[in-house]
C-alpha cells in the first residue's frame, strides 16, 4: 500500500505534468547554475546567465544577478507573441566560491545540448522542477546570454555575449530559383556586443526595477500584496531547498502592458496559483533596451529561431510573429549606428533577411526586403563567405521571381568565386555550380554589359569541374 507521502508526491507530479504539458510560454528565475534547466515543451528557450564581475565587490556580483533577471523578464515579456517560448535566468547561490565554473557558458552549454551530463548528485535538490529538463529537445532553439561587468570611475559597464543555435541542426538558409538552390549560414552564431554604460543614477533605477520585478503580486500594481521570487542562498544547498512555489517555473497566461500574469504550482499546497510580475518595467519608465540595445537582438533572434523551428516541424506560426522579429532586429541595427562594421549588426540584418525570406513564401515584396538586408550585411563584412552567399542567393531568388532572368552576372560570379575560395565548406563549391547552371539555363540578360556570355559561363563551369574533382 503506498504511503501518504508517496501518494502526495504522485499527485503533485501528475498536476505539474498536466500544467506544463500545455506549456507555451514559461519562465524560471533564480535557477541554480549548478543544475541548468530549460523548458522541454518550449520550441525556443532563452537562458540568461549572470553578468560576471572579476573583482570581489559583492554589490557588483549581486548587480550581475539582478541585471540578468531584468534582462530575462524583459525579453520574456517581448517574445510571448512567438508562442512556445521559455526563459530561464540562472545564478550562483550566495556563498559558492567566485571561481566556481558552473555559471560559465562553456560549462552550461554542453549540458543544455545534451553532450555533457549535469551533476546528478545535485538532482535531488531540484526534484520538483517538472516541465523542465537539462537538455534541449533536438531541433529546438536556444539563445544563451551572458555578460561581464566592469567599473570605470563611478560608472559601470555591461558587455553582453549571445550564442544562438538549434540543437543538432545547421542554420543554413536555402534560396530557390529556377530549380537550383544556394545555401549559407548566418556569419556568426556567437556575438560580443558593445559594452554599455550604467551611470550611478541608472544603477539606482536598476535596483528599484529589480525590487519591483522580483515579486509575484496579486494585482498588476507595484503596491499590491506580493511574494518575493525565491532567492538562492548558500543554506539552500541540500535536498528540499527548492520547494518554493515558483522555483519550478511559471506559465505565462497573459501580458498586460509591462506586466505578465503567471500561473504556477505551489507544491507545498498542491494548488495552482496565479500572480503578476512587473516584467518590463525598464529603468524609471524608460525601456531597458535604451541602455542595452542588444535586448532587441535577443528578442528578434528568439523570433528567428521560433520561425525556423515551426518551419522544420511543419507547425503553424503566429501570423504577426515574422513582422515582430524583423522589427526587433531592425531596432537593434538602428540603435547600433556608431559601429558601421560591427558583425553583430551584420548578423542581425542576416536574421531579419532570413525571417523575411522564409516567411514571405516567395512574395516579391518579401524577397526585395530580404535581398536588401543580406546585401547591407555583406557590405559590413565583405570578407565573409556566408555574407557573400546570402547576399547573392537572395538577389538571385528576387531577380528570378521578378524578371525570370539575371543581371550583373559577372559581379555575382566573381563574388561567389571568392566565397568558394574563402570558405572551407564544400557547399560553397556546390553553390557556385548551382549559380552557373542557373545562369546557363536562364534567358539572356537584357544587356550584354556586366554580364557573362554563354561561352564564358561554360568556360567557368569547366574550370569549376577541375576544382570539384582535383586530380
Amino acid at each position, binding site marked *: 500500500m503506498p504511503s501518504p507521502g508517496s501518494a502526495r508526491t504522485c499527485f503533485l507530479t501528475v498536476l505539474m505534468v498536466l500544467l506544463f504539458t500545455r506549456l507555451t510560454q514559461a519562465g524560471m528565475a533564480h535557477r541554480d547554475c549548478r543544475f541548468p534547466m530549460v523548458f522541454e515543451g518550449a520550441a525556443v528557450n532563452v537562458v540568461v546567465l549572470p553578468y560576471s564581475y572579476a573583482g570581489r*565587490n559583492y554589490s557588483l556580483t549581486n548587480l550581475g544577478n539582478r541585471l540578468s533577471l531584468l534582462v530575462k523578464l524583459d525579453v520574456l515579456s517581448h517574445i510571448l507573441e512567438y508562442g512556445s517560448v521559455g526563459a530561464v535566468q540562472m545564478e550562483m547561490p550566495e556563498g559558492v566560491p567566485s571561481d566556481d565554473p558552473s555559471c560559465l557558458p562553456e560549462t552550461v552549454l554542453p549540458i543544455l545540448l545534451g553532450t555533457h551530463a549535469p551533476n546528478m548528485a545535485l538532482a535531488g535538490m531540484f526534484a520538483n522542477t517538472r516541465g523542465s529538463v537539462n537538455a534541449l529537445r533536438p531541433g529546438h532553439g536556444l539563445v544563451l546570454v551572458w555578460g561581464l561587468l*566592469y567599473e570605470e570611475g563611478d560608472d559601470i*559597464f555591461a558587455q553582453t*555575449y549571445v550564442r544562438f543555435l538549434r540543437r543538432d541542426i545547421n542554420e543554413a538558409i536555402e534560396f530557390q530559383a529556377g530549380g537550383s538552390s544556394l545555401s549559407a549560414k548566418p556569419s556568426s552564431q556567437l556575438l560580443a556586443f558593445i559594452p554599455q554604460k550604467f551611470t550611478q543614477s541608472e544603477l539606482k533605477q536598476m535596483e528599484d526595477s529589480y525590487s519591483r520585478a522580483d515579486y509575484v503580486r496579486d494585482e498588476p500594481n507595484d503596491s499590491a500584496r506580493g511574494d518575493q521570487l525565491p532567492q538562492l542562498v548558500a543554506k539552500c544547498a541540500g535536498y528540499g531547498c527548492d520547494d518554493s512555489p515558483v522555483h519550478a517555473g511559471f506559465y505565462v497566461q497573459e501580458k498586460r502592458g509591462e506586466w505578465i500574469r503567471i500561473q504556477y504550482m505551489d507544491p507545498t499546497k498542491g494548488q495552482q496559483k496565479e500572480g503578476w510580475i512587473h516584467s518590463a518595467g525598464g529603468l524609471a519608465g524608460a525601456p531597458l533596451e535604451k541602455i542595452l540595445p542588444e535586448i532587441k537582438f535577443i528578442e528578434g533572434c528568439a523570433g528567428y529561431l521560433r520561425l525556423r523551428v515551426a518551419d522544420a516541424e511543419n507547425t503553424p506560426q503566429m501570423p504577426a510573429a515574422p513582422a515582430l522579429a524583423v522589427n526587433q532586429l531592425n531596432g537593434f541595427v538602428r540603435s547600433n549606428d556608431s559601429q558601421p562594421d560591427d558583425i553583430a549588426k551584420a548578423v542581425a540584418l542576416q536574421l531579419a533577411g532570413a525571417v523575411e525570406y522564409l516567411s514571405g513564401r516567395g512574395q516579391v515584396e518579401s524577397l526585395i526586403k530580404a535581398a536588401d538586408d543580406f546585401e547591407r550585411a555583406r557590405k559590413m563584412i*565583405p570578407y565573409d563567405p556566408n555574407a557573400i552567399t546570402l547576399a547573392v542567393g537572395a538577389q538571385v531568388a528576387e531577380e528570378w521571381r521578378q524578371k525570370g532572368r539575371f543581371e550583373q552576372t559577372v559581379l555575382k560570379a566573381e563574388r561567389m568565386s571568392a566565397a568558394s575560395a574563402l570558405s572551407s565548406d564544400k557547399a560553397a*563549391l556546390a553553390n557556385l555550380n548551382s549559380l552557373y547552371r542557373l545562369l546557363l539555363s536562364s534567358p539572356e540578360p537584357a544587356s550584354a554589359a556586366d554580364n557573362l556570355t554563354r561561352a564564358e559561363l561554360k568556360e567557368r563551369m569547366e574550370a569549376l569541374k577541375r*576544382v570539384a574533382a582535383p586530380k
Partner: protein
Amino acid sequence: MFQNAVHSANWIRNAIAAAALTCGVAHAQLTNCKDPGPPDVFKIFVDEVRATGGSTGSARVREKVQGIHKFLSENLKASSGDIASVRDCGKRFPSDSADFDNKEFDGLDNLRVVLEVWGMLDDPVKGSGSLGFALVPARPIAPPAVYVVPSANLLNSLRQGKQMSAFAPLVLGIRQYQNKNYADAVPLLCAGTQQLNSVLTGQSALGDDAFRTRQRELMKKVKEITDSAIREARRTPGSPFGLWNPTSDGTFLCPD
C-alpha cells in the same frame, strides 16, 4: 611498424614541445606564462594588467585591473573563436617592449603563440594607461611587431576600438601564411585587414599618430602577403582559388 612510427612521431613531438618550453623558460626578462596550454594549438597569451604608481595596493584598483584583464580575455575568446586558445598568463608582464627580443619571439613562436597582450593602468582615477600587443608572426614582415598604444582612457579605448578582434585574425592569418597554409591564411588575412582598417579610421580611431602610421605600414605588408597567399593557393591543383580572378592591375585583393 605503424605503432613504432606513431611512438617515434610522438617522441619527436614531445621533444620539440620540451625544447620550445625550455626556450620560453630560459629567457631572463619575462616570467613564464602560468598556463601556456597544450603544445599543438595556436595560443593568445593574456599577461597581467598592472597599475603603476602608488595606488597599486588598493582593493579598488586591483578590481579595476582584474576587470580590464577579464575584458581582454573574453573579447579575445570571442574574436579568435575555435582557431586559438586564450591563456591567462598570471603574473607574466614585460617591463619594456625590448623584453620582446628575437629570443623571446622565437620561444613564443615555438609555443605557437600568435599574440601576446598586456596592459598598464597609469592613473586609476582618470583611467589612463596603455595596452601592449606583441604580434608574434608579424615580426619578420614588420619588425619589431610590438605595439604599445597609449590611451587617455583605457577601458574607453577598449570599448570603442575593435583592435583586439582585428589583431586575432590578422596574426593567425600571417602565421598560416608562414606555415605555407595559404588557403587557410587568406580568409583570416581578409577578415583582419577589413577590421584593422576600421580601427585605424573614423572617429574612434585607435592610438596616436605614431601608432597609426606603424599600423598602416603593417597593413601594406599584409596586403602584399594576401596577394602572395592567393597566388600561392592558386598553384595547388584543384584549388578553388583558381576561380578567383585578379583586379585590372593584376593583383589579388580581398572582396569589398
